[in-house]
């Protein structure tokens, strides 16, 4: 029992980690606090649903199609909607406030479109829901697959950011946009790419999540909130921190849902968040700044 709950907690945590990695790219690099982030996850989940039940194709195929689309969409959103705000903002704080407001509006637009298309009902589909037996515990194959894919994608991102030229440029912008400009990094392009990459990641997570969770058009806000909490817990811009914090959150939520009460999972999220804020406001792995 404990092992089963732990395993499904790790799966959920892996999703949170993936989602948070995308958000930490958007917030840490592009400096956009994107409140409509979770809506993209839900939109991707609907897309995967459509792939499976509409086109009778595997959602895994969706994984090849949806994230690139989300990348393009996010890139367009950044260039068209957010760059004017970046130009207008005098300080980082001003940009933060403006981006919160603009993406808050965007949240309602995307959510409204999904509500108009799908209504408020819950959706799910059954893909690879074969029970697997591992060390005496039972896990659904779709969950395990989602976890494996999340690990692959997360690892790929980590390597891309630490081992490639472009990745290094993106990390440089996260640390100091002004200094990055001085060493001839195109900060605007790097920011747009980071934002778009964040969008692709959350879309990938959306496809994976749709394989084993039921979802509805209103659920985006919850994912945004959890991603934000994970990002803050892990330390802004810290990928490893996001991974650890995501796993912690997934595990705690699952334990609370199974052993305490499923109605209290969000309360558990908040409790952890508060604890981190009070004890380590710079994040689990964050360093206190100068």
């Amino acid at each position: 029992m404990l092992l089963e709950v732990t395993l499904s907690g790790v799966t959920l945590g892996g999703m949170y980690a993936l989602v948070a990695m995308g958000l930490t790219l958007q917030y840490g690099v592009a400096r956009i606090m994107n409140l409509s982030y979770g809506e993209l996850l839900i939109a991707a989940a609907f897309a995967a649903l459509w792939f499976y039940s509409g086109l009778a194709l595997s959602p895994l195929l969706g994984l090849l199609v949806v994230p690139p689309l989300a990348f393009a969409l996010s890139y367009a959103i950044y260039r068209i909607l957010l760059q004017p705000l970046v130009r207008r903002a005098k300080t980082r704080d001003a940009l933060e406030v403006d981006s919160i407001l603009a993406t808050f509006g965007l949240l309602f637009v995307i959510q409204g479109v999904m509500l108009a298309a799908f209504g408020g009902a819950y959706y799910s589909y059954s893909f690879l829901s074969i029970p697997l037996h591992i060390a005496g515990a039972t896990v659904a194959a779709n969950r395990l697959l989602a976890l494996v894919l999340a690990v692959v994608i997360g690892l790929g991102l980590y390597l891309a950011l630490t081992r490639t030229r472009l990745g290094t440029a993106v990390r440089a912008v996260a640390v100091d946009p002004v200094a990055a400009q001085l060493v001839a990094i195109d900060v605007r392009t790097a920011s747009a790419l980071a934002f778009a990459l964040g969008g692709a990641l959350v879309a990938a997570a959306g496809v994976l999540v749709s394989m084993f969770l039921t979802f509805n058009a209103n659920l985006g806000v919850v994912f945004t909130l959890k991603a934000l909490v994970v990002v803050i817990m892990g330390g802004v811009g810290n990928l490893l921190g996001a991974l650890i914090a995501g796993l912690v959150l997934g595990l705690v939520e699952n334990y609370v849902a199974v052993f305490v009460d499923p109605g209290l999972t969000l309360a558990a999220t908040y409790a952890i968040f508060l604890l981190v804020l009070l004890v380590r406001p710079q994040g689990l792995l964050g360093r206190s700044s100068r």
Partner: protein
Amino acid sequence: MSRRETLSILAGALATAILACVPFLFGDYGLSLAINIVSYAVLATAWSLFSGPTRYVSLATVAFFGIGAYTTAVFAETLPWPAVLAIAAVIGVVVAAIVGLSTLRLSGVYFVIFSFGLAELVRQLVTWWEVNKTRTLGRYVFTDITAAQIYWQLLALAVLVFVVGFLIGRSRLGLALRAIGDDETVARHTGIDTTRAKVALFVLSTVFMTLTGAIMAPRWTYIDPAIAFNPVVSFTVLIMALLGGVHRLYGPVLGVVPLALLFEFLLARFPNHFSIMVGLVFILIVYAIPRGIAGLVEQAVRRPA
């Protein structure tokens, strides 16, 4: 007191007197529209009381509004009305103080994130409580309070929020908040206990939101957590305050009136696409009128001079 201030007070008193006559002048529809407008006027003004000077975007308006509404739903039948309002205010103060003390001493982002999910958290907690402890989800609100009485209470609350805002503007706290809005580090170095000032103002502003919810609850005969904690309320309040302008006390009201009318129209015409419309209106406001109508008015006044 300057001449301008005396004039604004006189104008305010006159406007209040005229507005108090609304229930006698218009029919049911007019009154319900007026209730809507005045309640949003209180919420938006209270919102910008805190968020205007501190620049902390609070997304939690409906958390407090809902707490107020639920308090009425639970106690209205058994307790006298003033006691219900007092309980609502106390619960609102306690929640606001917990949220404020744990997040407002840190950078603004923590507060935004916390407030973003607060309504959802309270909604889930109330739902959990109702399902597990009272075994009911949803309550009927039976009171003998009429629509006109609700309107007058809201109007009185609106007057109160303006008086409080006016007094804060002239007080030490007002100066502290403007300093914090400019540069928090400097504010601390001039001896301002910034956390205390922010928490005090946050608590004050949320009391008005809680009371609005408590007063409004009898308008619905039935409420459940989804109705009382509807996030669209937080969003609407935010748009209205921003459209009006948060740098002046009278600003938010300038946004409330046109938007309340517009939303009334949109809700009637496009009930299924309402949130898309609202989202678009909001984005438009953020881009086109960042300093709000009050900012435009001031520019227009300043230019010919």
